[in-house]
């Protein structure tokens, strides 16, 4: 049956979503929100939404890449190497953005006890970690021709490295619990504590760096980028954000399947198909 293909699969409708812990609050104004957060609805919604994020993301990526690689004129000092900024800056901002998404989702999960929020946090973490790795890699590769070494302890690279440690710590903590609920709550607390630390880390790293070279910007700052060259950057950032949501849709669906494995709605939906 069509439930093999992930893109079109969904549990067959025709049953009432079970009352989760969220629905205990019968405030009808918020009922739609809690209903939305119920696993069967979320599962379906994620499946339906995904193409609407994926294909625009791909299209925008192609446009931005064309703009950055072809249309944008060569920089006077950095020549064509500056084109790396069109991937480096977006992945850097994504690595930070995903962490905030993760922390906010975890916070929502722990405050309002919404399972879906925990699922979103868990699903986002590896994506964010990979964005951080890409930032470090692209920053390192950018650095070699620009300042001659594969690594420099400049503010951005250093705080990205610490960001990677925060992601890895979150994933390691999650993995160390057998009980999913406990894993959710413990890692949620860590995420919230971590997100409070992120601005502290950034400020401290900038200060630490400034002691050596005076108040300077990160060496990887784009060479006073002209506004006409800015648009591929912005489009690429938007494209990455949409792509993140598209991948997240599938990851959240996997999380839902894993967490709901013993519930009746899931088992019955397959019986009906």
């Amino acid at each position, binding site marked *: 049956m069509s439930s093999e293909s992930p893109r079109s699969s969904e549990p067959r409708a025709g049953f009432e979503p079970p009352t989760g812990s969220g629905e205990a609050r019968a405030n009808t104004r918020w009922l739609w929100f809690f209903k939305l957060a119920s696993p069967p609805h979320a599962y379906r919604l994620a499946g339906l939404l995904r193409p609407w994020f994926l294909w625009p993301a791909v299209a925008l990526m192609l446009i931005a890449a064309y703009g950055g690689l072809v249309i944008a004129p060569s920089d006077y000092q950095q020549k064509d190497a500056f084109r790396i900024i069109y991937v480096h800056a977006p992945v850097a901002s994504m690595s930070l953005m995903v962490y905030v998404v993760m922390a906010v989702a975890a916070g929502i999960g722990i405050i309002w006890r919404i399972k879906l929020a925990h699922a979103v946090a868990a699903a986002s973490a590896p994506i964010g970690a990979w964005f951080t790795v890409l930032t470090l890699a692209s920053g390192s590769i950018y650095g070699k021709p620009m300042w001659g070494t594969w690594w420099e302890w400049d503010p951005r690279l250093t705080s990205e490295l610490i960001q990677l440690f925060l992601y890895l710590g979150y994933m390691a903590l999650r993995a*160390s619990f057998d009980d999913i609920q406990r894993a959710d709550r*413990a890692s949620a*607390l860590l995420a919230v504590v*971590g997100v409070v630390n992120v601005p502290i880390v950034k400020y401290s790293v900038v200060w630490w760096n400034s002691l050596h070279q005076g108040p300077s910007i990160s060496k990887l700052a784009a060479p006073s980028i002209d506004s006409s060259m800015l648009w591929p950057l912005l489009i690429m950032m938007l494209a990455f954000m949409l792509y993140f949501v598209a991948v997240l849709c599938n990851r959240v669906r996997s999380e839902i399947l894993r967490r709901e494995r013993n519930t009746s709605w899931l088992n019955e939906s397959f019986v009906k198909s």
Partner: protein
Amino acid sequence: MPPAATEPAVPGLWSLWLLVSRRELRLAARHWDQVLQPLIFFVIVTTLFPLAISPSLDELRRVAPGVVWVAAMLASLLALESLFRPDVEDGTMEQWTLSGQPLSLMLLAKTTAHWLLAGLPMVVMAPVAGTALGMPLSVWPVLMGSLALGTACLSILGAIGAALTVGVRRGSVLLALLVLPLEMPVLIFGARTVDLAMHGESVVGPLNLLAALLLLFASLGPFAMAAAMRISVES
């Protein structure tokens, strides 16, 4: 220095604080070795660096602040093992969570007592270690001041991590992975403060930053600790 109770006018909270603190100190008095071990580790780690780098005091002097600070960080990590684990293992912590008393206050009291036993000795020992690495006498006050503030921060952050991982088997490495990144700003401000002092520059700015960090952690940390402890202990 240990923060005062939240509301001095209410006798209950202060006496709770004293009760927990006295218990901690009394228990520690029975196990002096556990109190001394992190301190000895601190000294040993500081000794590793001359062996690894060079016996020349001129060379060591340049890295002395960093070495002392990193050694303090690692030693405080080791000391965290004895903060919560014994109480969780014998069921005391579960009683605390069920007691109806403010868990955040009790855990803060525990952490403060722990700092007195683990952090403060390192602050006192640090000038000795620093001098062994070539630090001038003039830097001692800044060294001790920054370490006092810093180890207090490390204790609080470490306690949050310890509460999160107390139920995890062999969780000491995980604890380090979680807590060290969070502690990096403290290290940056603390070590560089001493470095600035060694170069004769003003340290008021970073010291104030350290104090501000301590205030932030001390005010929010206990709630995070309590939440983490409940997650770990509740079955």
